[in-house]
């Protein structure tokens, strides 16, 4: 059981970190950014490529990967979101355009093989790859029958620290107030001299950086980095998390992340492995029907 709790905490942190980015964008823009999971994957992929194919140091690779992810945030804003905002397009359009971008990112990695267009980015095609041991310090202790592994333990403090920082920024800084202002009432924000477009870009950058970081931590700790880790592992679960926690609420996303982590692990332990996923999503469905605003959510807002 102890080991299982560790498992839950680890995956919970990943979920939380990923979902915070998701929920941040939704909170400010009322838009689901479905390219987020692709950015998550990209973070892991870029780190691997830099270390293994371009012989960079692990730490440098991580930094560059986060930068790349943050840059994808700008791409999302400038290519998928801003043009649609300008045209006052229905929010559902943004859903589609981000899907399109996700498609591009995944396909680019998928097709990355030696001698192809994207060889500089990825050479293993659809193959899952794992960080060669020794590329990063990964001490492992065995205490009281529990296995404590550095790369997994590291995820927890990193996530929590980041989310505290983000929480602080949102709550107590001028930028944070600005973001909340844009979220609540863009018109008023404009009248107060806030450059709404700038803040939205900033939101996307922060969100994507977090998503990328989550991807890195995930890929490093678990290996099996492939073009599909975003789609398969976190995309839908991310949705579950932000709903459990309450759309647009950062503490909600954090709590929801750990909640889902524990729900899944408990499902395995108590109900038998094969119902795990089913249980998680049944919980999601019930949560929406019984308490749509989630644990921390504000009142429902009726936009897509």
């Amino acid at each position, binding site marked *: 059981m102890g080991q299982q709790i560790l498992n839950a905490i680890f995956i919970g942190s990943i979920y939380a970190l990923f979902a915070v980015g998701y929920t941040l964008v939704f909170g400010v823009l009322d838009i689901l950014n*479905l390219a987020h999971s692709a950015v998550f994957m990209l973070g892991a992929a870029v780190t691997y490529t830099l270390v293994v194919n371009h012989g960079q140091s692990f730490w440098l690779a991580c930094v560059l990967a986060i930068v790349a992810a943050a840059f994808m945030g700008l791409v999302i804003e400038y290519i998928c979101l801003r043009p649609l905002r300008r045209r006052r*397009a229905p929010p559902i359009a943004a859903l589609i355009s981000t899907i399109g971008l996700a498609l*591009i990112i995944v*396909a680019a990695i998928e*097709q990355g093989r030696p001698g192809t267009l994207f060889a500089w980015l990825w050479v293993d095609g659809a193959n899952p790859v794992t960080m060669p041991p020794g590329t990063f310090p990964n001490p492992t202790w065995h205490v009281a029958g529990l296995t404590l592994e550095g790369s997994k333990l590291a995820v927890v403090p990193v996530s929590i620290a980041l989310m505290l920082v983000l929480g602080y920024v949102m709550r107590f800084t001028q930028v944070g107030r600005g973001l909340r202002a844009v979220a609540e009432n863009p018109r008023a924000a404009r009248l107060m001299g806030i450059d709404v477009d700038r803040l939205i870009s900033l939101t996307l950058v922060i969100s994507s950086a977090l998503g990328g970081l989550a991807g890195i931590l995930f890929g490093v700790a678990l290996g099996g980095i492939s073009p599909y880790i975003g789609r398969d592992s976190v995309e839908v679960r991310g949705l579950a998390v932000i709903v459990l926690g309450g759309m647009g609420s950062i503490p909600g996303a954090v709590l929801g992340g750990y909640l889902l982590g524990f729900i899944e692990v408990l499902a395995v332990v108590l109900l038998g492995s094969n119902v795990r*996923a*089913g249980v998680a999503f049944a919980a999601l469905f019930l949560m*929406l*029907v019984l308490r749509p605003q989630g644990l921390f959510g504000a009142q429902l807002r009726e936009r897509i």
Partner: protein
Amino acid sequence: MDFLIQLFTDPVAFWNSHTLLISQIGINSILASSMFVVLYSGQLSLAAPGFMAIGAYTAVLMDLYWHTPLALNIATGTAFAGVVGVAVGLPVLRLRGVFLAIATIGFIEALSLGVILNLPITGEGLGLKNPNADPLGGINIVLVSLAVVVFLLWRLTKGRLGYAWTAIRQDELAAQSQGIDVARYKLIAFVVSALLAGFAGGAESHLNFFVDPNEYGVPRTVQVLTFAVLGGSGNVLGPVVGALFLTTLPYVFQQAGDYIGVVSGAILIAVIIFRPQGIVGRGGFAFVRPRWWPRAQVRAPSTR
């Protein structure tokens, strides 16, 4: 290119050698139509694949165990999907926008991962062999039923029901002030959509020697949503055009070769940015409408 060349130079041979593709377009069109119905009544429901699965498994299982005639199997599958549609539709009615979307995603995931993969009768992960499938002969059924579906929807959208749906999509409050029972008509739309999806599932299962539990998940729903939105969810023809466009994309752009994913992603973004209301979008084919063509009266969903 040779794909298009053959289409125009030798349509007969094209027809004979692409029956599966054409049937698939038909199926996708019906699915897109089921998505259309909910969007048309202002609900972003993503439950289609779930109802598909119900239709497909019901039809095939009836054939395997009772050897009942095809028509009956598909009909039963469709009806069953409709029943489940009511059961799911009632609780989620009050949800709107993404909340409805995510709830329905929860439903399909719980169904496919929680139920289908754990019911012995569905063959769990082994899937179901469907020896009496008729991949090449199925095309007639599909195309005829597509024609019927489109005709029915076209009539519906023109009648009392359609007006009520439009009113609700446009402005629920105003709709109420006109004496329209919003909840009731939303549920009707939800169930009609379930029926269509169920039928599509049953029909598709007849085209395949194998029922694969993995084909009824989130990727499928994303695909269907894309058909409907890209085609334009304000006009009955929109979903059909969308399905046709996106299903044939890989064939039309064959020379893109391995990069088809990247290309179609880019096309997706481009189209949605330059026609946020969809290819058919506002007022049917208004943008290519010859003088004598009656002006389409149905509109794309409002941006609320």
